[in-house]
């Protein structure tokens, strides 16, 4: 341990104080100090990207449970010809998926499709509002993933690996870029559901092996938007300030005695906590939004209210510089009774999601905000056979080989469909895009090289895209 190393993390005052205690003390504390970086007081300070970014922020609308591409975005006329017939052998030869076996029959979508926008993009009658955004949207029909169970696949989409314990995309992005919000967290998660809870839980917005500052902070829709944001009973703003001033003064006295720089970090953390206490209520107070804006997000309709409020909060967050906002809506896991359940979710989310894109655009924020819409995989072209074949109550099973996602905004070329699939939509036939390719492209839009955004853990460098991923130029504006 050389003297320069020591000076790198100890200021002059501390240095002198340590010297007063004897050089041995310095040497030992250096010998045993942790390998933390020199300045951890502000891990969310904005940092330069690898190259010029096309987007500053991300809003990822994660449709947990896997929405059916066949009933929303992917008209397949050939399926009507094969409806209720066994799937042709030619599609099943390489099938080793645990879920898709037995006597499944082709299930043609009962939905009606029509073309929208100048680009003529297909949407079903279940998503009339997203359809209006056709010219902003890039529809990717050739997404594929490696796993077919929900949780591993959700981890794959969010963390790049189908295993617990790896950082999620939002953690990687804030680790790479920091955040421009100085009174709010840099990575926020918002949850809504159609009544069955949220799958996967916080493992999906976990910091994994990255420092805990990069963990997604779950803003809650009921109670405090952030855990323990409200002062305890009887502690008003004045008392809270008295409390904070006393804590600060005592910490400062301790700092004068010890010169421990962690105390300075703690003082800073308490000040940010205090700012968050006033900034977060302002953030979630939607009363300053106009009636027109409220209706764009469906705030005054019970059906759309909860997801709509999350969409509106997402816009308010990116306005305030929050780097990565993720909305989770669950569950789209329609193994049975798909017609009804899919409609429920579409009725809850279609209008607000479209409202968000339009609102971002009218405020000039869409150019700097990348919006992503999609789930962990798709659904099968066949009906679900495990739970019976009651006509009209059909569902679809999990399908990892080809599914559809939507992208819009910063860096993305809207008004285009990318990728194509065979006549049953079983496999991509053109431009297959793996989850890692999507992740590499998202990082690219933010000005980062996915191969350079790494973190050393357990003896090797890890990255969001594991050992794969190619930026997909076709998606870019």
């Amino acid at each position, binding site marked *: 341990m050389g003297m320069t190393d020591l000076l790198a993390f100890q200021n002059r005052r501390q240095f002198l104080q340590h010297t007063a205690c*004897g050089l041995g003390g310095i040497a030992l504390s250096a010998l045993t100090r942790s390998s933390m970086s020199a300045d951890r007081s502000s891990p969310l300070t904005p940092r330069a990207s690898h190259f010029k970014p096309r987007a500053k922020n991300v809003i990822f609308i994660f449709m947990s449970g896997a929405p059916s591409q066949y009933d929303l975005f992917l008209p397949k006329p050939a399926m009507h010809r094969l409806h209720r017939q066994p799937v042709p052998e030619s599609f099943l030869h390489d099938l080793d998926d645990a879920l898709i076996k037995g006597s499944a029959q082709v299930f043609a979508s009962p939905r009606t499709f029509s073309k929208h926008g100048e680009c003529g993009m297909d949407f079903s009658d279940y998503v009339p509002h997203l359809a209006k955004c056709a010219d902003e949207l890039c529809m990717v029909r050739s997404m594929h993933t490696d796993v077919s169970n929900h949780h591993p696949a959700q981890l794959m989409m969010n963390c790049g690996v189908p295993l617990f314990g790896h950082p999620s995309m939002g953690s990687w992005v804030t680790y790479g870029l920091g955040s421009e919000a100085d009174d709010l967290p840099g990575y926020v998660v918002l949850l809504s559901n159609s009544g069955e809870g949220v799958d996967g839980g916080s493992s999906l917005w976990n910091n994994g092996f990255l420092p*805990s500052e990069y963990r997604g902070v779950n803003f809650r829709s009921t109670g405090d938007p952030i855990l323990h944001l409200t002062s305890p009973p009887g502690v008003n703003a004045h008392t*809270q300030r008295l409390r904070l001033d006393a804590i600060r003064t005592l910490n400062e006295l301790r700092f004068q005695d010890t010169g421990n720089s962690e105390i300075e970090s*703690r003082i800073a953390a308490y000040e940010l906590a205090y700012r968050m206490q006033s900034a977060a209520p302002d953030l979630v107070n939607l009363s300053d939004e106009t009636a027109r804006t409220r209706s764009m997000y469906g705030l005054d309709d019970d059906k759309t209210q909860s997801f709509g409020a999350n969409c509106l909060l997402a816009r308010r967050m990116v306005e305030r510089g929050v780097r990565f906002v993720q909305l989770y809506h669950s569950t789209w896991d329609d193994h049975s009774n798909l017609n009804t359940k899919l409609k429920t979710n579409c009725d809850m989310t279609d209008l607000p999601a479209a409202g968000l894109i339009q609102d971002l655009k009218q405020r000039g924020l869409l150019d700097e905000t990348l919006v992503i819409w999609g789930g962990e995989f798709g659904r099968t072209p066949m009906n679900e056979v495990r739970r019976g074949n009651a006509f009209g109550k059909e569902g679809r099973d999990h399908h990892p080989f080809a599914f559809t996602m939507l992208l819009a905004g910063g860096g993305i070329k809207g008004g285009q469909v990318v990728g194509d699939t065979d006549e049953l939509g079983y496999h991509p036939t053109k431009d297959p895009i793996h989850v890692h390719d999507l992740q590499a492209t998202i990082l690219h839009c933010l000005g980062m090289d996915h191969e350079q955004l790494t973190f050393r853990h357990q003896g090797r460098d890890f990255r969001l895209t594991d050992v794969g991923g190619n930026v997909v130029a076709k998606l870019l504006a």
Partner: protein
Amino acid sequence: MGAMHQNWNFIATILSGMVVFVSQIAICAEPSHWSYLPVVRPTVPFVDDGVSVNPIDRFVAKRLEQGYSQLSQDADRATLVRRVTLDLIGLPPTPAEVRSFVEDTSPDAYERLVDRLLGSPHYGEHWARPWLDLCHYADTDGYLTDQTRPVAWRYRAWLVDALNDGMPFDQFTIEQLAGDLLPEATIQQKLATGLLRQTLSNREGGADPVEFRVKQVIDRTSMVGEIWMGLTVGCAQCHDHKYDDISQQEFYELYAFLDAADEINIDAPLPDEREAYEAALPEYHRRRKELLAPLASEIEELQSRWEEKILAARDNPGKDWYWDRQWELLGLVWGGGLGEGQLEGWQIALLDPAKRSQLQKDRLLDYFLPKADTIDAARAKELKLSELNAELQKLHATLPKVTRAPTMMQTQTPRTTFVHLAGDFRDRGDEVSPGTLDVLPEINSTCLDRLALARWLVSEEHPLTARVAVNRMWQQFFGQGIVATVGDFGVRGTRPTDPELLDWLAGEFIRSGWNVKAMQRLIVTSATYRQATLKPLRLSAEQIRDAVLSTSGLWDSRVGGPSVRPPQPASVSQESYGNTWEVSEGGDRYRRGLYTWVQRTSPFAMHITFDAPNPNHICTRRDRSNTPLQALTLLNDPVIHEAAGALAQRVQREVNSDDEQRVTHAFRLCLARDPKPPELVVLCELLQRLRKDSELSKIDAASAPLASNVVGDPTWTILCSVLFNLHEFVTRN
């Protein structure tokens, strides 16, 4: 002549160059990385600095001397007693403990303090935590459905006892990896194998049980590699290790030891259960037999048809969807919600009926009976099997309670282990037998089972086990290991900052008979540890909560038992699928953090905020972050505020005099020292200002947080909460 001379010089230059060249070849060809070489006990250097007290100090002082530096003096006694108490039992000392140590002038006062702490029942609770981080203990299955494991705590209880009893580390290793294989294994020894049960179980419909069993075995193999050998062997599951001498073949040889083990829960009666349970068993079995006897042959006939169907489905998947599903279900749902071994049903079904134990027969029958209609609904109805099943369940309910426990057993249906090409278990490479790594000493045993593996790990020749273990202890006390990468002693890991000290400690650990407490005693009694300038460390999540509880007097100090659910915001448990958080009653709200229920998909919020690790992964080193969310928790969490109220009551009760005396008492309780004059001024002024706050004076019992009956005087509650929020409170100096 001159030319000749020059030639000689030339040749000499070439020769010496060659020597250098040859010696460089020797270095390059050196097959072994430092940590693979045997532990050689170095001579303790001589240092005369007047400070060193034991060999650790002499190694450290020698190294410091090279930098023209030396050990600093001991910390003051109040700092020292708080430091060593927090480090050995995880709790802050009481003011009485501080006073008695500060006033004790006998020369061995510190050593006696250390011995008292090492003998405390709370010692094991504190040291269990980093070990549970390593094996990623939790009270649920993980994955989407994340079902409960109500008896997971049996392993934790074993661990706390083993640590408190000072079980030598070799025995500790053998029992956890292979306690079930010891001759005449006791229930306690079997409980130890609960370590290997900390892997995740996927019970989501459609999950392939074979695939997820493979993941469990990989996880167990990684545990052996990382916990005992400090090797990231898991990197070699898909390909040869990129940096270390671990081939993919070797990974699967190590894997083969664990591939031969199955999950099994056992009846492990608690002391107060044993007598009644054992007394009732014979009568229970007699009556069960009696109930089954009239239909024995009919049931056997139906069950064997059922077994035939599910085994046929297993052997020919994809032919018959219905029976595929029945086979899959047997593998997925067996013992779900009870934390039973997930594939026990499969193992029994695969076993020749003649080789099944009575217990195994009973268990499969109990699974089959309510499903008898799947094979022949008419016959099941005719025989009234569902009524019989109800009778059996009624009978079972009369059996006195017996608590079960997760353990491992050697498989009865041996499987062949293959290399998984590119990490895909369906893509079989070469067949492998159990084996260890070529760079390490040979394993000497004719029977290559887990017991042999465990004994090999703790053989004196093993270069890694002792080094890795003492290095982790060092990290625990000093914040960073002698090898900073505690989980990676491979070539990509950092090199030891003091290789001789590491080897001396490792050698001493083995020589002491793997005596963990003796090593810890050696470390904490060293002058190195007692220095005034030891690096401060932020307390762990559990320590912070424990300190708040114990300082306030709310702490329920019972050791052991099932996990508890202290209060936390409801929205936390709502984050995960279908889980509820039934808040514990009474003292269980105030138990040490060690006992807090760990739900894999939404762990206890306060612990996560303070860097408790993800409970699904081996964690060798916790982060110590410093975030605004931590500030919000300590400022506003109703649980912390409740404790501040309790501390306020305690202070008012225990000191019946003026503000200064009371503030001083609260300060001592929280920080184990007297306030300095400026600190006292700040706190007394705060009291004065708070008393002018009219809002605060309106607070009464009705606004008590969390319906607790603990409400302190509002002014004093705020003052106490300030103490909980100080950097010094959450830090060990």
